[in-house]
């Protein structure tokens, strides 16, 4: 036993040592920057082929077509002719910074004990110096919603930008939403515990729904008076009733989605977002009429049923978009932290399924900004918004051409290096020297 303990200690220490190899966050923007000549992908569906983009003090002050408007090139001028400029991609619903290494328990902080714990906050556990975080930036992912997991009400999420000294610096929107896992009408038999294999009807579905109803009703009642004794959990729910916070509901089936939306609305919660939404396309009219947006499940996954179209998961978003539902992409699932850097390629996959490129781009820029309530600052290249953007050699939705040369968060000129690029250089050098 002692030896195991020792091993664990050494293990933990070694992780600490490795984490030190972090990129230094960029300082605040001091000089005006102008990028010209690039094809600007605004993020709202439109493009400017020969653009001039200027930002100052972290804000966009000009986004214009060089052909039609004469704007002076000011400050630090970057010639991006033949290149592309995009708003920074936004990754909703990820455990980035909460989990460093999936298989190592010591590095997992996404799931707290307890079934309804909205007062548990992801932000304070967010590791701004995660090696996974820095590996996202070279692919254009610059903002993320950090979400706790597990239980029924997992806790409260926050939105961060991905180049920071610490979680306070990182925070873009604190405690933006509460994560609710709606029960499923079918439940997986835990065969490894001797239960029959397969998904069986969940006998406790209604009970669980009632528990959620009770909890929300109690939270609501709690907020209507000044209670003598504090209930942190109820207190943490108040933003939902005031409309300041959103509820993110993990639900996949038609019944589950309809139940969740109907019940939450009835309980006085205004902003509801469906997360997962595998069958959402089957109830798109309902979602549209209730103005419910969807963070659709990871594009690169398998269909649930053998009889379904092989490419169903590749086009779930398309089906919803075609029906007029507001959709954004997300990456939760296996190895999600590291896979979040593939967000642009998930959008690219939708184009292969027939979606317009600029529309697909919106699903990782403007749409998540709207859904997460960031659209006054982020998500598009529009004057007045944050200068959170990047320059790519080519089409950023295709992996061959998603090659970033520069990236800015709030106008700060951030590093595109990482522990991975460092190793790449180190070993490339080793072999070239050997030659």
């Amino acid at each position, binding site marked *: 036993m002692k030896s195991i303990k020792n091993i664990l200690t050494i293990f933990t220490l070694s992780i600490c040592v490795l984490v030190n190899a972090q990129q230094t966050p960029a300082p605040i923007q001091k000089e005006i920057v102008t990028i010209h000549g690039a094809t600007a992908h605004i993020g709202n569906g439109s493009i400017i082929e020969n653009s001039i983009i200027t930002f100052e003090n972290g804000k966009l002050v000009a986004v214009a077509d060089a052909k039609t408007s004469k704007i002076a090139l000011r400050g630090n001028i970057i010639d991006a002719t033949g290149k592309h400029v995009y708003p920074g991609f936004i990754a909703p619903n990820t455990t980035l910074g909460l989990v460093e290494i999936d298989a190592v328990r010591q590095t997992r902080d996404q799931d707290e004990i307890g079934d309804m714990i909205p007062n548990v906050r992801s932000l304070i556990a967010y590791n701004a110096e995660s090696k996974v975080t820095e590996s996202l930036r070279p692919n254009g992912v610059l903002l993320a919603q950090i979400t706790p997991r597990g239980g029924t009400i997992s806790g409260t999420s926050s939105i961060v930008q991905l180049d920071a000294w610490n979680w306070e610096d990182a925070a873009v929107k604190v405690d933006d939403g509460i994560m609710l896992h709606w029960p499923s009408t079918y439940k997986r038999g835990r065969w490894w515990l001797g239960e029959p294999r397969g*998904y069986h009807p969940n006998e406790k579905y209604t009970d669980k729904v009632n528990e959620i109803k009770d909890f929300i009703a109690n939270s609501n009642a709690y907020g209507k008076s000044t209670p003598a004794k504090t209930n942190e959990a109820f207190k943490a729910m108040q933003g939902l009733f005031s409309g300041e916070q959103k509820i993110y509901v993990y639900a996949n089936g038609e019944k589950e989605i309809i139940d969740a939306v109907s019940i939450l609305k009835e309980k006085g919660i205004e902003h509801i977002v469906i997360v997962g939404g595998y069958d959402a396309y089957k109830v798109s009219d309902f979602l549209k009429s209730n103005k419910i947006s969807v963070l659709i499940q990871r594009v690169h996954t398998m269909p*649930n049923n*053998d009889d379904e179209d092989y490419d169903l998961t590749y086009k779930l978003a398309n089906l919803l978009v075609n029906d007029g539902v507001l959709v954004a992409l997300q990456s939760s699932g296996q*190895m999600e932290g*590291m896979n979040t850097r593939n967000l642009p390629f998930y959008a*690219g*996959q939708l184009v292969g399924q027939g979606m317009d490129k600029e529309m697909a781009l919106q699903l990782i820029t403007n749409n998540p900004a709207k859904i997460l309530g960031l659209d006054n600052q982020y998500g598009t290249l529009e004057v007045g918004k944050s200068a959170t953007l990047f320059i790519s050699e080519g089409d950023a939705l295709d992996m*061959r051409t998603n090659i970033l040369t520069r990236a800015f968060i709030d106008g700060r000129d951030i590093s595109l290096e990482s522990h991975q690029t460092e190793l*790449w250089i180190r070993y490339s050098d080793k*072999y070239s020297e050997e030659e």
Partner: protein
Amino acid sequence: MKKITLLCFLLLSINQIVAQEHFPKNTELKTENNNYTAFTNATLYITPTEIVKNGTLLIQNGKIIGVGKSVSIPENTIIIDLEGKYIYPSFIDPYSGFGVAIPKKAKREQSPQYETKRNGFYWNDHIMPQNNAIDKFKYESKKADELRKAGFGAVNSHIMDGISRGTGVLIALNDQGNNADRILNDTSGQFFSFKKSVASRQSYPTSLMGSIALLKQLHYDADWYAKGNSETKDLSLEAFLSNKNLSSFFEAGDKGNDIRADKIGDLFNHNYIIIGGGDEYESIESIKATNAQYIIPINFPKAIDVSNPYATKHLTIEEMRAWNQAPMNPKVLAENDINFALTTYKLEKVSQFNDKILKAIKYGFDKTKALEALTTIPAEMLGQSDKLGTLNTGSYANFLITSGELFTKETLIYENWVQGNKNVINSKDQKDIRGTYTFSTAGKTYDLIISGKPSKLKSEVKIDSIKYPSKIVYKENWLALSFTDKESNEVYRSTSNISKEGKNISGKIVLPNGLKSSFVAISKTPSETKEKESKDKNTKEALEVVPMSYPNVGYGFMELPKPEKILFKNANVWTGEEDGVLAETDVLINNGRIEKIGKDLNSGNAQIIDATGKHLTAGIVDEHSHIAILAGNEAGQHSSAEVTIEDVLDPEDIDLYRNLAGGVTTIQLLHGSANPIGGQSAIIKPRWGSDAEGLLYKDAPKFIKFALGENVKQSNWQSFSRFPQTRMGVEQLYVNYFTRAQEYEQEKKSGKAYRYDEEMEVLAEILNGERFITCHSYVQSEINMLMKVAERFDFRINTFTHILEGYKVADKMKEHGVGGSTFSDWWAYKYEVNDAIPYNAAIMSNAGVTVAINSDDAEMSRRLNQEAAKSVKYGGMTEEEAWKMVTINPAKLLHLDGDIGSIKEGKSADVVLWSDHPLSIYAKAEKTLIEGAVYFDIEKDKLKREAIKQERNKLVQMMLLAKEGGEKTRTLVKKDKIKMTCETIN
């Protein structure tokens, strides 16, 4: 109704037990009953095909003495006239656990148990040939009664536990006698299965492929032991050897396992009698080719409750078809001349047996074949044809007396005689009084309806539509009927002795005031009930069998694809050769090969596909995958070189089709990474629609999976008892095994007697350069180590798979001559991938290592083109080099580059037509060809989707109707498919 003359003197059973001759009697005087019993005027099914009308069956002392038209009846004979009735031999159930308890489940322990806990027996606890069912046998009267009611007179039982289960016992279902009479054979056969014993928790085997390997090794070891080579005693092997000549029964359990069991048998010249699964109709050709005898359960799947429309999304066509098609299994087997018996095994209740048989008959199962499957065939399997299964002279007096021909709904079994002892199932002497009557009493006229089973009648007493509660008891020709007048709440009771003559019922009725008066119920209709008619009607309507496909699941082919002559016109051809990408070029496919590449090729009679603006490439080769297999890991030992993935292919896995839709045409299915020396791999082509054998890449080189790091030292789960627990131990394990393999080879070559060891044979193949290693690897130290071990034993590692730190030792890899098959960008999922970088492929490639990008994942494998494209981003690889990483490079690593991996004249026509640049995220595979046959076509896929929609709807409707028609349904359960990766242990 014909007049029935009954000469029945004895209502009680005639005890015809053969007295145990050598037993003295002290409690009474010893006597013997040597009288005969003759059954006359019956239709005799002496055998299923030898039928005698108006024949006589003569029995004495539990045996048949005479049968036929002209049987001379001795004077001391009791004669039973069976005019209008039928006699059949009683059924035999050849596969049962009757009277033999299954052992208790062993308790779970903290750490896995790797070694045996027994003394003097075989090294694996799940091998128990020394077990004899007779030692545990306890006659179960209640179960015997159930079986007799279904028509059975004998069952073959054994201990239903373990892989090698020992001997069985054949029992007559004779309640009157004792074991001395009942036990017909106490070593009725040897029994096997693929399932481990519940009585031991010894880890090995954890998988189906492990069970197969273990059974093979058991045979090898027995052979070695028989030759006197062992210096120690092994009671298991001794028992196995001494029972060698008995019939061997193998519980396989489904069509795939039927073939797996048969293959083991073939290896050792052993004809197993295979216990199937009821799905044999789906691959009847392969089943037929086994030439084996079968025992087939008839537990046809229940209809699924589809009343909740939201839940039907969880259903698959595969499951719905099984409900619709499986009852035709016996018919299909019979029509293909497969010798098979039927069993009650797997039925929820034995009482369902007759309904299931009727269902099979309705699906076209021939009645004569059915009778054979229940009598002569099982008798023959058990080597008891002279004693069981017919009415021939000398057989046990095991027979059924029925009201008519068997296997019709109306026919009743009256009596089931076992060893000359009568067992009444339905009284044959009792008149059938089912029907509608009318009677008057106390000034009111009532209607009386008698229905239900003859053995359990139901009554209904009513005036117009008002029903009065009533009770009916009908026994030994006495009818007792009582009912309650609802208005007055008074009870009327009647008793009547049913006369043989006439249709009316007459007797006495006791009025509520205690007075008696006469009771006459006048018959209104013949004894056919409406209920029955309507039920028959319902079932007739339901009999529509949907067509099968290859494989018999969604997206299956109605007709298997065949090689075509195709000319792709004006494509951008990615040759993967020196020619690079050829614009606007034609490629002619013929006879499964790439016949010609060039401009403006003559089409001849080829089908022309306009590929203008599209891209034609070689099919993708996935060096590392785990789709379409039933088991991924044999984790029960630290070396499992003896197991092979080829044994556990699942040709019905939808992932095969989905891989085709991603342009994949060759796949190496690897063993997992649970142990340093894993199992042999299977190289396949995803020929959707073929059987397991048909998936295999013909004459492919042999490979085996090795593994290093966290998984083999079991550091990510609770297991602290298996060597190795560190990377240091891993090296020593290899050294130990390879040294032993060398010594094994020397021993073998020396000509001395040696113990054939499948594991050592496989390892020796590696040493001899006949088998290649693909090794799961992550960190540089262990990668370096394995290369050094190999060099020490004078061979080379072929491929490092995963190889995420390959970039740190790329120069050493190049020098050793090993290739790398890696992920494009995976990392952060475990500690040992901390330094995994997406630039790995590019760095290794630059260093001159042959690099492939693999999937190890069913989802990623269908878009490996995109994964290859990531190396353009990470490391700046050229597009052509990137593309090679999923085609010609993995083909090289598999030593198949002479045949596949590039577009070159003469190579296999494994090609993909892409809608766009194949490395583009926007590209879709439009056509995927394997050896010139179109296995995926995006246009045909659309048609399949539509067909699936329609068939699903149709089957759901059929199930709804079936439910309405009274069919029992089961709750809808969604399949839990396990997505396999290296780490999956199941």
